[in-house]
C-alpha cells in the first residue's frame, strides 16, 4: 500500500476564514480541509453560515480574514485573491440559475468559452449524453420540469471540468417523490467521475446518507465533523444530537458520575456533583413492557404512522409526555397503564 492512499494530498485547505455582514459574523474562524474525490456535506439550520462558506470558497463572497488554498496554491488570502472565474470551481445554485434567454445547449456552452468552438461543442455533447439530456437540448429553461432543470444545472456546472463542485441545497427544490431518486443518481454519477464535492444541505437525512464526511455548522462555527455515524451515534453536544434526530429530554441531577432521573440512573462521566444535566433518549430507545420492570406510565396517545407506531406516555414525575417509537404494534389505547424501560445504548447526557 503506498503512502498516498494513507494520506491523500489535501485538495482544498481552508484556514481561519471569517466573514461578517454589518458586524454580524456569518463565518467565525472556519478551518476545514478536503481530500481529492471526497464528498462533504455542510449541514446546519438556515442562517448558520453554510451557504456563506460555499460562496467564500467559490469567490463570490470575499472573506474578511483567513486563507483558502486549492491544491496548495492560495486562491484567497490577505495578499492575493483569485477572481471566481479564474478558480475553475463549479457551482450549482439552489434555484439552478439557468439563463432564461439561452436554451439548454447554450447554457451548457456558456462555461466553455475557453475551448475552441469544435472542442466546446464536443465537450458539450459529451456531457449532454452522459446526463441523458439529448432530447432537451433545444428547449429553454422555462419549458423544463424541476428535475430536468436540476440536471441541466448539473451538466452546466460539470461541463468545464471543475476541480471542485460546490452545490447549494441541490435537491431542495425538487418534489419529495423525485428527490431520493435524483439524489442517488446524481451522487453515483459524481462518484464515478471522481469529482470533489462540497454540498450544502439542511436535511439531516441527506447529510447523513450522501457524504463521506458531514460538517455540522452553527452560528458561523463548525460544531462537529466526521462520518455520518460519528455524528449520529456519538454526538459531541446537544446541538449535534438534536440536529439529526428527535429526542425525549429528561432533566436530572448528577451524583458520583451518574445522572439521577425519574427514568433511572445513567452514566454521566465528567459532571460535577449537584450539577443539573439533561438526559437525551431517542424515541426508539424507549420500550413499553407489559411485565413488572420499568417506570409506571399512562398512555396519552397512540398513533400509527405507517411503518412505525408512535406512543405518547405521561410519567408522574415528568412535566411533559414522552414519545416512544417502535416497529411493533402495541395495541395500546389512551388511558392504558403500562411500564417503560430505557435501552441504555444511544442515550446521551449533556
Amino acid at each position, binding site marked *: 500500500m503506498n503512502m498516498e492512499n494513507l494520506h491523500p494530498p489535501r485538495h482544498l485547505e481552508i484556514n481561519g476564514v471569517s466573514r461578517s455582514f454589518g458586524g454580524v459574523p456569518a463565518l467565525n474562524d472556519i478551518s476545514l480541509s478536503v481530500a481529492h474525490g471526497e464528498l462533504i456535506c455542510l449541514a446546519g439550520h438556515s442562517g448558520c453560515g453554510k451557504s456563506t462558506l460555499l460562496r467564500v470558497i467559490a469567490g463570490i463572497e470575499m472573506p474578511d480574514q483567513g486563507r483558502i488554498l486549492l491544491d496548495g496554491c492560495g486562491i484567497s488570502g490577505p495578499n492575493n485573491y483569485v477572481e*471566481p*472565474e479564474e478558480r*475553475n470551481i463549479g457551482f450549482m445554485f439552489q434555484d439552478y440559475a439557468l*439563463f432564461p434567454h439561452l436554451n439548454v445547449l447554450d447554457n451548457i456552452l456558456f*462555461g466553455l468559452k475557453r475551448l475552441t468552438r469544435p472542442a466546446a461543442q464536443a465537450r458539450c455533447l459529451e456531457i449532454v449524453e452522459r446526463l441523458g439530456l439529448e432530447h432537451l437540448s433545444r428547449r429553454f429553461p422555462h419549458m423544463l420540469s424541476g428535475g430536468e432543470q436540476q440536471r441541466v444545472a448539473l451538466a452546466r456546472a460539470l461541463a468545464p471540468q471543475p476541480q471542485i463542485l460546490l452545490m447549494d441545497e441541490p435537491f431542495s427544490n425538487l418534489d419529495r417523490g423525485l428527490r431520493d431518486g435524483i439524489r442517488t443518481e446524481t451522487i453515483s454519477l459524481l462518484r464515478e467521475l471522481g469529482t470533489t464535492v462540497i454540498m450544502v444541505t439542511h436535511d439531516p437525512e441527506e447529510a447523513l446518507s450522501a457524504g463521506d464526511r458531514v460538517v455540522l455548522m452553527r452560528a458561523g462555527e463548525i460544531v462537529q465533523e466526521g462520518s455520518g455515524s460519528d455524528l449520529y451515534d456519538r454526538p459531541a453536544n446537544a446541538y449535534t444530537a438534536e440536529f439529526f434526530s428527535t429526542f425525549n429530554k429528561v432533566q436530572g441531577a448528577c451524583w458520583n458520575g451518574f445522572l439521577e432521573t425519574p427514568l433511572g440512573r445513567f452514566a454521566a462521566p465528567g459532571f460535577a456533583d449537584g450539577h443539573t444535566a439533561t438526559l437525551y433518549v431517542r424515541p426508539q430507545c424507549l420500550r413499553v413492557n407489559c411485565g413488572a420492570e420499568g417506570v409506571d406510565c399512562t398512555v396519552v396517545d397512540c398513533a400509527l404512522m405507517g411503518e412505525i407506531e408512535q406512543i405518547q406516555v405521561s410519567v408522574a414525575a415528568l412535566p411533559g409526555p414522552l414519545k416512544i417509537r417502535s416497529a411493533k404494534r402495541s395495541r395500546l389505547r389512551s388511558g392504558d397503564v403500562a411500564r417503560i424501560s430505557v435501552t441504555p445504548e444511544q442515550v446521551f447526557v449533556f
Partner: protein
Amino acid sequence: MLIAALVCLPVLALLLIAFQGSAGLWPHMLANVLPAALKNTVILLAGVGMLVTLIGTTTAWMVTAYDFPGRRVFEWALLLPLAVPTYIIAYAYLDILHPVGAVQGALRSLLGYSSPREFRLPDIRSMGGCILLLGLVLYPYVYLTTRAMFLTQAANLVEVSRTLGTRRGSVFRRVALPLARPAIAVGASLALMEALNDIGASQFLGVRTLTPSIYSTWVNRSDMPGAAQIALAMLVIVVLLVLVERYARRNQRYAAAAQRPRAMSPARLRGWRAAGAFCLCLFPVALGFIAPAAYLCREAWKRVSFAGISPRIWGEIVNTVTVSAVATLLVLLSGLVLAYAARTYPGRSTSLAARASTLGYAVPGTVLAIGLLYPVGLFDRFWAGGVEWLIGAAPGLLLLGSGAALVLAYSVRFMAISTGGIEAGFSRIPPSLDHAGRMLGRSSMGVFRSVHLPLSKTAIASAGLLVFVDCMKELPATLLLRPLNFETLATHLYGEAARGTYEEAAIAALLIVLIGILPVVVLSRLGRVET
C-alpha cells in the same frame, strides 16, 4: 462616481452663486419678488395636488373595480394626457377658450347672448385656470401609481372586507383609499414636481410662480445671483416633495412584500351607472387630450394647407432630434454603468452615487440651468483663454455654443429615468445568474454582455424612449441653455406663444404631442408599471 458628481455640480454651483449676490439684493428679493411668487407657487401646488389626486384616484378605481362599456379603452386612454406637455395645453386652451373664440361664441349663441361683454366664461388666464389645466395633464401620474397599487394589492383585501360585510361602494372609502395612500403620495409628488418645473403654462396664463420669476430675473434683469436665490427657494420645495415621495415609497415597498399580486374581479355596471362611469372617465381624457389634440390638428392642417411646411420646421426637427438623441445615448450609457455598479459592488458609495444621480429629475429645469450655467461658463472661459493663448485667436464658447451644455442639462435631468428603468430591469435578474456566469469563467464585463444586456433589452429600450421623448419636450432648461439662434420645437412654440403669434407653433405642438404618445404606448403596454 464621476456621473454622480456631475449631477451634484449644479446644486453646488447654485449655492455658490446665490451667496455671491450683493448684500442689498436679499432684502429686495424678500420684499418684492419672493413672497408673491412663493404664495402663488404654494397655491398652485396645493390646487394641482388636490385636482390630480381627485381625478387620478377616482378614475383608477373606476377602471379597476368596475366594468362598463369602454373600460378597456379607458385603461390606456386615461394615460393620453401625459403626452401633452403643460405648455402645450395652456397654449391650446388660450385659443380655444378665447373670449371671441369658437367655444365661447357657441355657448353665447346657445344661451342667447350676443356679445362677449354680456357673458363670458371665467378667464382661463388665472390661477384657477392654471390649476385646472395643469391638473388635467398631470393627473396620469397619480392614475398610474394608484392603479398599479389597486391591481397588485387590493384584490385580497377587498374580498376580505366584502366577507366582513362592507358593501362594494364603501370599499373604496374604507379599504382602497387608505391602501392607496402611499401610491397617491408618490404619484402626486411626481405630478407636483412637473408642475413646479412648468414654465410655459404659468407664464402664458399670467400666474407668477417661482419658475417664471427665475427666468425673468435672469433674462430680463440679468441678475444671476438673484435668480440663483429664487432657485434655492424652489429647491427647498423640491426637497420637501422628494422626501414625501421617498417616505411614501418606503411604505409601498413594505406593502408590496406583504401580499401576493392578484387582480380584482371587476363588478359589471349597467344602465345609468355605466353611463355615469363612462362620462366620469371621458371627462379628463376629453379635456386633457382630445380637445387640445383636435385643436392642434385643425390648426396645423389649416397652416399646412395654407403655406405648406416651412423648411424652418424641418431644421428645428433636426435640431431637436440631434440634441435629444445625443443626450439619450449619454444618459443610457451612464445609467447602465451606474445600475451595474450598484448591482455588482453593492455598498454605500455606489448606492449613494445612484441615489444622487436620481436627484436631477426632481430639480426643475430652470434651477438646473442656472446651476449649470456658472460652471459651464467658467469652463468655456477657461478653455477660450487657453486656446487663445495657444493659437492666438479666440474660439467661440465651447460648451454653450455647441449645445453641449444643453446635452449636459438633459443628461443630468433625465438620468433618474434611465438609472431607474435599467435598475428595475436588472432587479428581475436573480443575482444567482451573475454568480453562475462568474463561476462559469466569465469576467464581470463578460457576464454583463452575455447575461444582463440580453435579459434587460426591453427595459433599456423603454428607458431610452422615455428619456428621448422627455428631452424633446423639455422647455425650461432648453430656453436658458441653448446656443444663440438654436431653436427646437419646444422653444419655437414658446417663442410664438409668448409673442402672441400662432403661425407655425401648432405644427410644432402637434409634433411634440404625437411623439409624446410613444411613451404612453410603452407605459400602457407594460401595464403594471412601477413609476
